[in-house]
């Protein structure tokens, strides 16, 4: 049966006709129109459906009845020869053939007749019932009988019963000598595939020897066929796999009776002292472990004693019906147990058939030798003991904790602090200083502790509570928040002292010199502040007192003291702290990675420097691997350079999305990718460049500049005629082409290297302010303005720049010295002005310094404004240009006619630097300077026009304010009148 069920998969039954397999490229069939959707009966006649829900269809032939001719009524005919018979009309006469079909209303099929149907009613009982019903409570009602119908039994059962079979007996000829086991066992017949009850065989055996009369036959046993489980494995006959019971050494009381080596008695008696020889995994095919010295019983040995050696006539009643199988399966094991048990069995008791399961008892864990059953209740010491947490933190914990939950220590995880939780989890301690207190010097810490102790003792004196062992009352604020004024606890001065401590701890040992300058406006104050900071860095405890101005009043001093401390705390150098306090996340999410170009671009600064030195080539060139799309290659008629790869574009690598480096590169490149607009070029060709670089003395510089101007103004003024002249001039230059060219390059490089050298040497001595300064300096040198060129010789330029750096550290006096020093040079006023303005601004901050130096030259690169403007690169020219200069003037005066903000901006870009100047510096100086330039030097018409433009702006604005003032005055004068 089981085998059948297994094979069911193979001989399945299929109903209906299978659909034809779909073919892919077969064109879709046209849907059949409704009028062609017809149904015919088996005779080919059309059927018309009449109701969708009733499912009824027309009878007859095209809604007629019966035939093509239609329904013809039956006629009554009777004659003498043939008398008309009385016809009994049956319902079948009015039915179609379909009605007699399987699904018709009167299906005709071969069925069991009523009497063979199970539970058929015989007419007699029917009648009797009907009669009874009449006399019953409710007349004519057989309700109860209808409800309670007898269980139907099939005809086969009834036949068997008629043949003498009883329920519960087996089917077959009656047998002698053997009583039916059912007599002793349960009396319930089993149908189907129920397993024979387990106890039955044993009872059979027991009753083997009982008396059975000769003349009595018994019905055969009602048995079910033996359910043979099919072999599933590949092992041979008789194989038994690993017995888990044996392997686990548990109560497997399998006694091998037939094995001569097996001493069942020993097992049964002295079972405990004679442990089974092999423990662990035992089974066929398992070898002997290295720790076991005997290897005899590796393989299962089949002893012949397990098999029958002689052919006995086995009783067919053992449930196997002639099947011979190894004795193991047939023999009863448990029945032999009684025999082997030698001890006396108490009366009324039998030996248990199944031994009770062994209860395994695990021994309690062994305590370590040095274990002392002492409970530690002090969490503070506990923490410090276990993890090398700083004693300060431990102390803090103790103080804060000893007060709080002394009575109920560590009740839940919410009472644990981070350190304890960490211990529980088994994490490592953070690397950085675990407490703010760690950052203090030990001495300071001590002092802090003292202060707190004294304070708290003062306060806790009146309310002396029970926790005497922790004398320190926990301060209401953690040590870190001591910078905040504690309103109820501490008076003002001591707070500032704490703050001082904090500031000291923050600044001590710091080497960074880049600091925020909070007191820019008041230079002296800023100086004092910096002095204070310096002292802090050196670890001076009295830094504040020393750095304050003794000449100030007490009130002023106290105020400044507070300000300084606050500022120093506020703007403390934070980088080192933060870096030490945070650790990197260890596990990376896949989502947190971002694709970054594998080949990073090189250092931008290097490239910029190379561009400045005009050393194009290796320094500015970078080559990446780039994968064009396959289709693109095809379209370009080019073989795919990387035939195997499916990559497109630049090869990418996954990087941490939030890596600092991803962010570092981008803004830097942005910043530098927008180069500042450069000064207007005066040079005509590069030969002129070489000239001005070569010339070392100011005079020749001037001359060359003048020559440039003259040559350049020509064509503008006189058009094509002068054009030829300029050409002429350049032509005259060209013969000396090859030599100056190389020379020019060399000199270029030389000056640059000189500068870089200078820079290096400077950087050593001066602090970080200087290198930003020198950066701006290199910017300056690139297109030396005509103005600047005329003022400084190349050597003096460097000198001035170096001086300007020193100025920042030195005082104003030196500037004055320098002013005097430079006076003999041409246009000294300008330099003085610029330097003074410089010194004013640059001392304030780094950013300001760079801005100032950049604005030192009137057309030097500008700041963030230009960045925004140039973000989208070069603009398109405005739709219409009027005469250029006039239009510019117009634009300068009024909002631009093209009202487009962008256009206006781009236009103004040319004057932007000047405007910056105007905003940042004193107008007058600037104007003065420009006047000078104008008077001394001839500029390009373009330049001059713009200059005059800005000037007119100045003057107009000036005039307007003056005008306003004047008007005000007149108004005031008029008012009284």
């Amino acid at each position, binding site marked *: 049966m089981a085998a059948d069920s297994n094979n069911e998969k193979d001989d399945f039954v299929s109903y209906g006709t299978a659909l034809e397999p779909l073919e892919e490229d077969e064109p879709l069939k046209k849907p059949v129109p409704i009028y062609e959707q017809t149904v015919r009966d088996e005779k080919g006649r059309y059927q018309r459906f009449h109701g969708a829900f009733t499912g009824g269809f027309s009878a007859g032939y095209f809604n007629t009845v019966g035939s093509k001719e239609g329904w013809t009524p039956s006629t009554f005919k009777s004659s003498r020869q043939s008398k008309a018979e009385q016809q009994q009309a049956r319902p079948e006469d009015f039915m179609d053939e379909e009605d007699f079909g399987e699904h018709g209303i009167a299906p005709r099929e071969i069925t069991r007749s009523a009497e063979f149907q199970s539970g058929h009613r015989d007419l007699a009982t029917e009648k009797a019932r009907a009669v009874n019903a009449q006399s019953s409570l409710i007349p004519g009602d057989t309700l109860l009988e209808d409800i309670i119908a007898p269980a139907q039994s099939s005809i086969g059962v009834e036949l068997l019963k008629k043949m003498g079979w009883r329920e519960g007996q087996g089917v077959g000829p009656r047998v002698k000598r053997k009583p039916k086991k059912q007599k002793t066992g349960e009396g319930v017949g089993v149908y189907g595939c129920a397993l024979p009850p387990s106890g039955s065989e044993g009872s059979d055996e027991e009753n083997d020897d009982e008396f059975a009369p000769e003349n009595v036959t018994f019905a055969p046993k009602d048995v079910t066929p033996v359910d043979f489980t099919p072999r599933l494995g590949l092992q041979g006959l008789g194989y038994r796999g690993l017995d888990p019971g044996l392997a686990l050494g548990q109560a497997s009381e399998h006694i091998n009776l037939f094995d001569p080596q097996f001493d069942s008695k020993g097992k049964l008696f002295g079972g405990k002292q004679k442990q089974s020889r092999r423990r662990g995994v035992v089974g066929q095919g398992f070898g002997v472990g290295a720790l076991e010295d005997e290897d005899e019983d590796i393989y299962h040995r089949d002893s012949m004693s397990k098999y029958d050696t002689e052919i006995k006539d086995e009783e067919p009643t053992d449930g196997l019906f002639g099947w011979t199988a190894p004795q193991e399966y047939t023999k009863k094991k448990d029945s032999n147990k009684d025999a082997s048990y030698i001890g006396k069995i108490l009366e009324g008791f039998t030996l248990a058939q199944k031994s009770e399961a062994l209860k395994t008892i695990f021994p309690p864990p062994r305590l370590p030798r040095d274990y002392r059953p002492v409970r530690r209740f002090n969490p503070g010491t506990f923490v410090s003991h276990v993890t090398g947490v700083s004693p300060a933190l431990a102390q803090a914990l103790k103080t804060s904790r000893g007060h709080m939950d002394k009575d109920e220590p560590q009740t839940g995880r919410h009472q644990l602090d981070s350190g304890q939780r960490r211990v529980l989890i088994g994490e490592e301690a953070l690397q950085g200083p675990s407490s703010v207190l760690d950052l203090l010097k030990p001495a300071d810490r001590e002092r802090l502790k003292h202060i707190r102790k004294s304070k708290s003792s003062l306060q806790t004196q009146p309310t002396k509570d029970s926790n005497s062992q922790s004398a320190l009352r926990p301060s209401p604020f953690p040590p870190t928040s001591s910078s905040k004024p504690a309103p109820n606890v501490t008076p003002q001065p001591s707070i500032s002292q704490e703050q001082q401590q904090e500031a000291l701890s923050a600044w001590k040992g710091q080497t960074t010199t880049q600091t925020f300058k909070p007191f820019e406006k008041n230079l002296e104050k800023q100086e004092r502040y910096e002095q204070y900071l310096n002292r802090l860095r050196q670890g001076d405890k009295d830094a504040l007192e020393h750095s304050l101005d003794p000449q100030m009043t007490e009130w002023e001093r106290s105020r400044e003291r507070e300000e300084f401390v606050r500022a120093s705390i506020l703007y403390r150098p934070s980088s080192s702290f933060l870096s030490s306090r945070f650790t990197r996340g260890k596990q990376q999410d896949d989502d947190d990675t971002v694709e970054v170009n594998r080949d990073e671009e090189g250092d931008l600064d290097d490239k910029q420097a190379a561009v400045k030195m005009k050393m194009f080539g290796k320094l500015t060139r970078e080559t990446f691997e780039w994968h064009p799309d396959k289709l693109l290659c095809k379209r370009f008629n080019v073989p795919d350079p990387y035939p195997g790869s499916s990559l497109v574009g630049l090869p990418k690598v996954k990087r941490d999305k939030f890596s600092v480096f991803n962010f570092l590169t981008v803004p830097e490149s942005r910043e530098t990718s927008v180069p500042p607009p450069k000064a207007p070029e005066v040079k005509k060709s590069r030969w002129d460049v070489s000239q001005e670089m070569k010339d070392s003395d100011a005079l020749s510089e001037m001359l060359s500049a003048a020559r440039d101007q003259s040559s350049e103004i020509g064509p503008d003024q006189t058009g094509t005629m002068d054009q030829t002249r300029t050409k002429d001039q350049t032509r005259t230059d060209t013969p000396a082409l090859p030599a100056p060219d190389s020379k020019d390059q060399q000199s270029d490089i030389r000056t640059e290297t000189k500068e870089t050298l200078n820079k290096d040497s400077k950087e050593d001595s001066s602090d970080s302010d200087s290198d930003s300064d020198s950066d701006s300096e290199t910017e300056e040198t690139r297109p030396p303005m005509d103005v600047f060129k005329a003022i400084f010789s190349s050597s003096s330029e460097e000198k001035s720049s170096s001086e300007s750096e020193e100025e920042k550290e030195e005082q104003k006096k030196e500037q004055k010295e320098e002013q005097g020093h430079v006076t003999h040079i041409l246009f000294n006023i300008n330099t003085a002005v610029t330097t003074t303005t410089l010194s004013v601004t640059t001392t304030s901050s780094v950013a300001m310094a760079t801005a100032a130096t950049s604005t030192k030259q009137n057309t030097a690169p500008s700041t963030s404004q230009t960045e925004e403007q140039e973000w*989208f690169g*070069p603009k398109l020219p405005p739709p219409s240009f009027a005469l250029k200069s006039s239009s510019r003037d117009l634009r300068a005066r009024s909002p631009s006619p093209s009202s487009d903000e962008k256009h206006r901006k781009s236009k103004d870009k040319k004057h932007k630097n000047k405007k910056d100047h105007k905003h940042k510096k004193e107008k007058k100086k600037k104007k003065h300077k420009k006047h000078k330039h104008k008077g001394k030097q001839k500029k390009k018409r373009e330049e001059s026009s713009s200059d005059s433009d800005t000037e007119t702006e100045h003057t107009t604005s000036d005039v307007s304010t003056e005008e306003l003032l004047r008007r005000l005055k007149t108004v005031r004068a008029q008012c009284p009148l």
Partner: protein
Amino acid sequence: MAFPAPRPEGPQLPQVLLRTVDCLQGPVRAVRFNVDGNYFLSCGADKSLKLWSVNRGTLLKTYSGHGYEVLDADSSFDNSQLCSCSSDKSVILWDVASGQVTRKLRGHAGKVNCVQFNEEATVVLSGSIDGSVRCWDTRSRRQEPIQILDDARDSISSLKVAQHELLTGCVDGRLRRYDLRMGQLHVDFISSPITCVCFSADGQCTLSSSLDSTLRLLDKSTGELLGEYKGHQMKGYKLDCCLSSKDTHVLSCSEDGHVYCWDLVEGSLALKLPVGKAVVQSMSFHPSQCRLLTAMERHVQLWANESESTEESMNTDT
């Protein structure tokens, strides 16, 4: 005129104004010769693209379909197709004869600055303010570009195609050359925002103009600086530069209303052509002859080395 101007013997420069064409389409954003130089295209700010005959100066066809000003255009090698790009972020492929839009290629995130066919007009390459170069397939109906080159960090201002190479100039100051055959990308750092790039006719050099009013001639293979040309004014606007047809001269538009022309080898200013008073927006050098087209405001001027008597009599409207 004290002394006669020494004229260069071999290559001559376009300094004679042959005619001025009023394009009547607002400011002309770009003017381009076609492949053989018989026609030119003018891209107007009034959303139209116009095709002109060079010799007669007559309007042949107007192509309208852009939604905003046309910024650049190019014609295919067989004169059958045109491509143009516009501020409306689209690139349009035109049928020359019918004037119909063959395809409208959308995908750029910003206005498209430059557009170029490849040699066989199988790919249209467009560079946009969104910093990407998109390669559009003209052979298939695919709406997506074949490849997007988004290596630039700023607006692509100019792009040129030569054989198997693509040269782009970017506002981030980098000159990128994509070599399809080698599968390499060469980046040259110029530092100043690049406004226009060109290949030399021999394909050995690249010319780039940048906003520091400098033109640089770089060796294509090594990136070394071969020449530097200064004197013109290019500080805020995206102006064109080009090389003469025989690589003898370097030309650049200028904001001061001139076209500057330098000798390529010597680096000296050979000609300063006064075009007008406004900014010279665009120009194009004739592929074979010594002719130059310049665009200023709404006019397109045609310059030649000498006045051609044969075509002198044609009507020009100023």
